[in-house]
């Protein structure tokens, strides 16, 4: 029986979660990267007090670069393990895309749940509007996971691995990154950001989703 696209995506996502829990290396690398970066920032500041805007920018910079250590693994791991042709044979393109987006979204939410509390403790940050921070992070991570999955598929097989994913990601994700910083600034008590920023992020996420869905077919059925 051929599963529906939604059921297929759920199966791919469960497969990804099961494999990554079994291997654990990807999670550990990403979380340790986040912790190491946070420790570097906190140590270099030596307890200094930052403006809310700087606090917000630093949080998103750490989130962005930490996510780069895990968001591209979906296709790269399959390629290295040699399982990509099998997945291509059995998985419909949209099921694979959205299954991997769902997996990456879970991965990035766990990263944020790990990093943000530690960040608040280490940098002694007060949250005045927690719901704005939560919304910014959820919508931001959704954008990162959609763009990361498509660009991860693009970068598969590239002769230069290190750094290329980040180079591809940054310009595409800036319309999520900059409003995310502004909203986080607002959550930390600053004056930047407003509801329209969140709306802009959601709209951009939707555009990324539609474009990824349309373009992924050309990559998946390329030969």
């Amino acid at each position: 029986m051929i599963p529906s696209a939604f059921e297929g995506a759920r199966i791919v996502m469960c497969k990804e979660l099961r494999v990554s829990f079994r291997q654990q290396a990807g999670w550990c690398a990403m979380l340790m990267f986040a912790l190491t970066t946070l420790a570097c920032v906190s140590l270099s500041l030596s307890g200094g007090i930052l403006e809310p805007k700087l606090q917000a920018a630093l949080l998103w910079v750490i989130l962005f670069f930490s996510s780069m250590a895990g968001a591209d693994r979906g296709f790269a791991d399959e390629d290295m393990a040699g399982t990509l042709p099998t997945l291509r044979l059995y998985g419909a393109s949209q099921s694979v895309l959205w299954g991997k987006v769902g997996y990456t979204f879970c991965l990035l939410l766990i990263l944020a749940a790990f990093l943000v509390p530690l960040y608040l403790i280490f940098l002694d940050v007060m949250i005045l509007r927690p719901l704005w921070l939560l919304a910014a992070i959820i919508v931001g991570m959704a954008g990162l996971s959609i763009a990361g999955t498509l660009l991860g598929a693009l970068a598969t097989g590239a002769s230069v691995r290190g750094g290329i994913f980040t180079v591809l990601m940054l310009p595409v994700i800036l319309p999520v990154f900059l409003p995310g910083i502004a909203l986080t600034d607002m959550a930390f008590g600053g004056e930047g950001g407003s509801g329209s920023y969140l709306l802009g992020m959601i709209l951009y996420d939707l555009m990324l989703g539609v474009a990824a869905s349309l373009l992924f077919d050309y990559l998946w059925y390329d030969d």
Partner: protein
Amino acid sequence: MPVIHYIAFALTAAVIFTVVFVVPPAEGLGNYVRLAFFHIPVAWVSVLAFLMSAWWGQKVLRHHDMLADAKSAASARLGFIFTVLATVSGAVFSKLTWGSYWNWDPRQTTIFVLLLIYGAYLTLRAAIPTQRRARVSAVYALFSFLTVPFLVFIIPRLYFSLHPQPVINGSGHIEMDPVFLWTLIAALLDMTIIYWGLLYHIVCGHRHKDGKDGETI
């Protein structure tokens, strides 16, 4: 030599003459305004080259057109050069008029992100094996094009800008001296023709070298 080169040469000479000898110093900017007749056209071509690269990218995906791939790649390379010129001329103009080379003004941000996109496109193209190169590059050209509406239309309106209003302002009126306006239109047309001429030259050169549709660009 195709006729487009003669047109570009004649128009460039006319624009240089007008900018140097006819255009008067502008109120508040003085003679620095002459730089705008170079800066604005190269910035325009930077965006145009990006649009054309994405346009030919969709032709690659829909029709497997390798000539379109050659055009898309050539357009991205030219776009990168024009974006560097726009960034440098903008930074010099910024220093002369506002006192610093760089201040992350929304339009400076936009042009810099465009530079990053072109750089990423060319890096990706260099890193991908030949058999997947056309398709992967086309997908990235189209995917990164999503940022354009946000960078060109939304971010300049969200953040404070030192740049003046666009030529056609929000109320739909053109508030520019006719000499400035017509010189600017001629400069924009000239730079667009130069872009097309260079594109034609690059694509034809590669086709001639490869004896086919520029597959190795």
